């Protein structure tokens, strides 16, 4: 059955991207860098699993609900990530040592010690 092979491929790719998101949120050095792994890879993994669900059930209701869920994740994940990133920067969470460009330097009152 070709349908089961498509569903299996989508499921395995979604699981792989979710695993990459978990690995990135554990291994990357900084809050603002970890949000890349969390938001992008996590949303892509969940979206691929919902695409597999739409292929597997193939009802009108399931396909429309899957598209709705994927769109909801794609709309809300950047908003939440931006809110957390701005809050983290304003709390003065220390950035990584390899940070080269800080476009908000001097615009917000950071409360930690200034970098050398």
């Amino acid at each position, binding site marked *: *059955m070709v349908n*089961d*092979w498509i*569903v*299996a*491929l989508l*499921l*395995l790719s*979604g*699981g*792989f991207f*979710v*695993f990459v*998101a*978990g*690995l990135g*949120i*554990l291994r990357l050095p900084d*809050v603002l860098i*970890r*949000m890349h792994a*969390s938001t992008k890879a*996590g*949303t892509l*993994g*969940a979206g691929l*699993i*919902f695409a*597999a*669900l739409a292929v*597997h*059930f193939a*009802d009108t*209701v*399931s396909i429309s*609900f*899957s598209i*709705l*869920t994927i769109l*909801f*994740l794609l709309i*809300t*994940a950047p*908003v*939440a990530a931006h*809110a*957390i*990133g*701005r*809050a*983290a920067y*304003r*709390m*003065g*969470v220390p950035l990584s040592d390899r940070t080269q460009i800080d476009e908000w330097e001097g615009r917000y009152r950071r*409360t*930690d010690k200034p970098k050398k």
Partner: protein
Amino acid sequence: MSGLSDHAAVLAWAIDITALLMLVAIALSFIRMVRGPSLPDRVVALDLITIITVGFVGLFAIASDVSAFLDVAIGLALVAFLATVAFAWYADRRAAQFGLEADLRDREGDR
């Protein structure tokens, strides 16, 4: 997991491997949530845990052949978004008032 209903062999293997990968991802995010040095670290890890849980609800809907679990997934995604934005708002307000030293002092007072 895949003993819930009768699938093809390929789909059963894919469901099992995907469930294992998601389990490992949730475990890694939980390690970051325990160990994260500041409050936004923990909020980001909790957000990722909830997104992975939304994906796992979809996987469970495939594994059990019940499409009604999609409502659970949409509700959980909505709750995750609202919780993350609320956490960020309160962290932002506390940063505007006290700064990072308040966060560090709170965690030293917890110990």
